[in-house]
């Protein structure tokens, strides 16, 4: 027979766990809102720089820059993997790691030199566990990545690209599509390809009015500055997306953990009540048995 006391003890501990997961869910929700606000605040800059590029292009300037054109021969590739510093967020870290390892395999099959950079403690330990050596590691990025920090990394990559140490840079991260949908993607940031995002292109085209701009000092010089800047902003957006997605993943994981705990408590309560009832019945039977024995 199930021990009623042991069942009660177990039920109590699950209640405690539910309390913790519930709190974590609430924290993740608050952090998600903050991260989301930051991400939306950052879109203003992107929209404006896209418009600026659109206006530059409209002035008849041929948009060409070493960062925009791919190398004919790609030998050294760098991959930056964005994971979380903390776990308990469902498949978030696992998905990114899996994608990164698949990407790594692809490069190895093509005999390229790969430099793997990882952000986030989970990713670092994940690669360590699989005995994959990584080059640079970053752990300073939490739910609110600072542009200054991202800029430092971006400048490192720009330098490596300019000096020919790397020919291509991919970022593996979780892209934020909607609140209900995040996707693990591999995005090529160097070479940049096009300056204007797909979303922004229409806006940029229609938004540029017929103004005749005066360029100080010259369109070429401005372009020279715009291109690295838009790379930095793109990289920053990757970090922001990853931060938002992490909080959503944690929110969802903790929500289902709380629900599971509730289910378990319900089941345990049922078993516990049944066990208690049968214990009481047993005791009554014993008392009655005793009374009958005395009478007889």
């Amino acid at each position: 027979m199930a021990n009623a006391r042991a069942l009660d003890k177990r039920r109590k501990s699950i209640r405690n766990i539910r309390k913790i997961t519930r709190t974590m869910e609430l924290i993740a929700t608050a952090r998600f809102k903050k991260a989301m606000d930051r991400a939306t605040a950052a879109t203003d800059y992107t929209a404006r720089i896209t418009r600026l590029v659109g206006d530059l292009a409209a002035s008849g300037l041929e948009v060409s820059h070493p960062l925009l054109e791919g190398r004919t021969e790609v030998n050294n590739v760098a991959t930056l993997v964005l994971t979380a510093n903390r776990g308990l967020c469902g498949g978030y870290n696992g998905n990114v790691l899996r994608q990164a390892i698949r990407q790594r395999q692809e490069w190895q099959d093509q005999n390229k030199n790969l430099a793997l950079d990882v952000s986030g403690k989970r990713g670092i330990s994940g690669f360590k566990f699989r005995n994959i050596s990584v080059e640079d590691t970053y752990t300073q990025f939490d739910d609110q990545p600072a542009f200054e920090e991202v800029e430092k990394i971006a400048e490192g990559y720009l330098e490596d690209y300019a000096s020919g140490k790397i020919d291509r840079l991919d970022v593996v991260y979780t892209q934020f599509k909607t609140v209900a949908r995040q996707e693990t993607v591999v995005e090529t940031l160097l070479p940049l390809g096009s300056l204007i995002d797909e979303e922004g292109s229409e806006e940029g085209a229609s938004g540029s009015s017929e103004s005749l701009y005066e360029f100080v000092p010259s369109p070429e010089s401005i372009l020279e500055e715009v291109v690295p800047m838009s790379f930095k902003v793109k990289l920053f957006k990757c970090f922001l997306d990853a931060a938002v997605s992490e909080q959503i993943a944690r929110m969802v994981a903790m929500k289902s953990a709380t629900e599971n705990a509730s289910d378990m408590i319900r089941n345990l309560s049922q078993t516990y009540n049944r066990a208690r009832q049968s214990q009481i019945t047993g005791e009554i039977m014993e008392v009655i048995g005793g009374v009958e024995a005395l009478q007889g």
Partner: protein
Amino acid sequence: MAELQCVVVTPEKTVIDKQIEFVALPLHDGEIGIAAKHSPMIGRLGHGEMRLTGGGQSESFYVDGGFVQVNENTVSVLTNRAIPAADLNGEEAQQLLDRANEMSAKSPELMAIRDRLMSQARGQQRMVAKR
């Protein structure tokens, strides 16, 4: 006095979005003053002081490179950082300058980095000295 819209954005957030009368910005080779109905322009910013005047008040910020776009009576300032003048730290600027002075400048790329750091440090120092 005629007014114009001034928007200052950094990659992290929108710092300023309001009506002003006049703004002075550090371009890469000197200062530019923009008042209402300025002709359309796109310029490259340097490192230095941005002064906003509006409603009888004046504000001062340190801007860290970037661009300015003037269009339809709106000034958009895209910059890496916009720090209120009061928050600048003279010691930090000096440290930055010292570090830049120690850097090697053996290739054009390194030289460009060194020059940028120096210009940032000097821009900040100038603003601290003015306070």
